[in-house]
């Protein structure tokens, strides 16, 4: 399998080099050349307006998926409450369902989970696929996989969405392999392509430096995990009724292969930055613990939380729960104040959804300024105390 250039048709327009995800094509002497980095992914072929790119990649036949319909959301819970991302996904599923004119369904699995049905109805689940079993009391990969597999085989959804939590990221890949379908991880945007009626799944790639839109043409359901916090929870809707479809799973302890011995909750350090309305975040430019004490003062004045970049976590100043970015949390507060943060793409990936971004940094070239609503170029150790001073004077809460 390879890709080649029909040189006489190439005008060196560079379109192919821009669309290539792997730098597998470059312009040399005014003509496109395939480099050794080419993975034969074919992304360049359609973009070429001169049809100068050819390949021996065979077009696979797309199977008939007309029997697959409906958007399913896997509902995560801890036996006491539902996980926020499940409700966020029910909101997104309704948008997608409108475009497809299909129904939204929740997949509720566990032991004694009837109590969650009302909430799911209110948040827009038209159907609830409901499976209870004693062996489902604790989440275990293989048990949950088997139940979802049976449901998918029987009821054939077109789309299956799962929150990208620790549980979701353990479960989704196993389910996708088991039901023989593709899966896209950690999506930040989902849309329906109106022509092909397929799901366009957009996610950060290459450490958040580029975004990639991914489709699953050849298998069903189209599965995606979605990061908590990136989709907005809809306000509870006017729905009053769900169609509950009860399913009796057949499970045997010996086939599940794992046992949960203990679940230990660790004392929360009081930080849940994903729920914060205001975030004051610090990076390299903040002077150790003392510097963060200063930021904490500002955060307290605004009723906000303290957050940081990866470096600060590595220095042991704040715990991992406070890290914003590609390898940390995604946040979308109303106000995000970035103090002494240069704004590496990995960090930006986690805070771009903020309503207002304020950047304070002494380096006028820091990339954080490019994404800020309001910028102050200056020393954080002077600006932040000044903010504290003016806010305190203004008779704040």
């Amino acid at each position, binding site marked *: 399998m390879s890709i080649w250039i029909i040189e006489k048709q190439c005008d060196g327009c560079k379109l192919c080099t821009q669309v290539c995800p792997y730098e597998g094509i470059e312009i040399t002497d005014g003509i496109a050349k395939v480099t050794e980095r080419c993975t034969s992914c074919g992304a360049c072929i359609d973009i070429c307006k001169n049809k100068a790119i050819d390949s021996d990649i065979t077009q696979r036949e797309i199977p008939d998926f007309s029997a697959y319909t409906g958007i399913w959301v896997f509902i995560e819970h801890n036996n006491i409450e539902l996980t926020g991302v499940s409700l966020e996904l029910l909101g997104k599923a309704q948008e997608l369902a409108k475009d497809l004119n299909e129904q939204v369904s929740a997949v509720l699995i566990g032991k004694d989970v009837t109590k969650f049905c009302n909430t799911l109805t209110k948040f827009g689940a038209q159907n609830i696929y409901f499976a209870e079993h004693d062996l489902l009391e604790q989440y275990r990969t293989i048990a949950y996989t088997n139940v979802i597999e049976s449901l998918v085989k029987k009821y054939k959804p077109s789309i299956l969405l799962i929150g990208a939590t620790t549980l979701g990221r353990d479960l*989704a890949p196993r389910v996708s392999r088991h039901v023989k379908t593709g*899966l896209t991880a950690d999506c930040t945007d989902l849309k329906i392509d109106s022509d092909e009626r397929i799901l366009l799944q957009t996610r950060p790639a290459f450490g958040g430096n580029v975004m990639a839109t991914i489709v699953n043409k050849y298998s069903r359901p189209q599965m995606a995990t979605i990061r908590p916090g990136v989709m907005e929870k809809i306000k509870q809707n006017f729905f009053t009724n769900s169609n509950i479809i009860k399913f009796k799973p057949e499970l045997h302890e010996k086939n599940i292969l794992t046992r949960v011995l203990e679940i230990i909750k660790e004392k929360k350090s009081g930080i849940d930055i994903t729920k914060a309305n205001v975030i004051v975040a610090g990076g390299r430019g903040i002077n150790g613990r003392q510097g963060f004490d200063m930021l904490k003062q500002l955060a307290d004045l605004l009723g906000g939380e303290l957050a940081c970049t990866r470096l600060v976590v590595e220095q042991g100043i704040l715990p991992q729960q406070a890290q914003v970015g590609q390898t940390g949390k995604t946040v979308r507060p109303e106000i995000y104040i970035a103090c002494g943060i240069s704004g590496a793409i990995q960090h930006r990936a986690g805070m771009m959804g903020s309503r207002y971004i304020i950047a304070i940094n002494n380096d006028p070239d820091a990339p954080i300024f490019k994404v800020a609503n309001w910028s102050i170029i200056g020393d954080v150790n002077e600006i932040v105390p000044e903010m504290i001073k003016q806010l305190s004077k203004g008779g704040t809460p």
Partner: protein
Amino acid sequence: MNIIVLIKQVPNTTKVKLDPITGSLIRKGIESIVNPDDLHALEAALTIKEKTKGKVTVISMGPNQAVDVLTHAMGMGADKAVLLCDTAFAGADTWATSLTLSKAIKKINDYDLVICGHQAIDGDTAQIGPQVADWLNISQATYVKDIETINNKEIIVKTWLENGFKRISCDLPALLTVISEINEPRYPNIEFMIQACLDKAPIKIWNAADIGVNTCDVGLEGSNTHVIKTFTPDFKRQNETLTGSKQESVSQLLERLKKSDTTIAHIF
């Protein structure tokens, strides 16, 4: 205890720079490294090997130059290494990659444990581990942050949760994906690395035929998902720089927040 470790060569995405004019990614000259989580996977395997005896085999899928990560692994103390290298493997999504890796594991056959890093820094999918476990039909534990005990039948691990951790026991064979918290990877021994570069080094190269897969089932052709578009994220905002003395710039800022439509505008 025979252990298989899956490792990946990745571009060092933490050092990626953006073109200041076009805002697009500069891919040239980015160094290749062993995926950071995978070093922790190998360290975990070597620690178990030292206690229980047995062999550690490292598998990587990638182009010829990915042999570098295997040399690194041999330097750390792996006994054998396999590079899965075939143009047919290129462009694979996680479905096709996990199939390829699991076929190689089945060929090796004699294993009690498969360990891999939680996720790779270029793809960040964290899907390969669980998908390989499913192809192999064995138990899995992901986000492993500690290995407590292991005997012939089961392994007990601690796995990370959003609000604490979980202790799980898994029947063997099992697949673990580990996070960086689990250990501190050792540095490779230069002598071992030199040994690994010699002709007789136990690094094998297998192609599609060697592991018994049809080329149409792997790589881009065997993939279920495909990238149809890549683009640089749009980060545009109105971006106003507030100037003047610190008193002036801060008061301008608070003035703007006061007039904003946030729910806490009143406190400014």
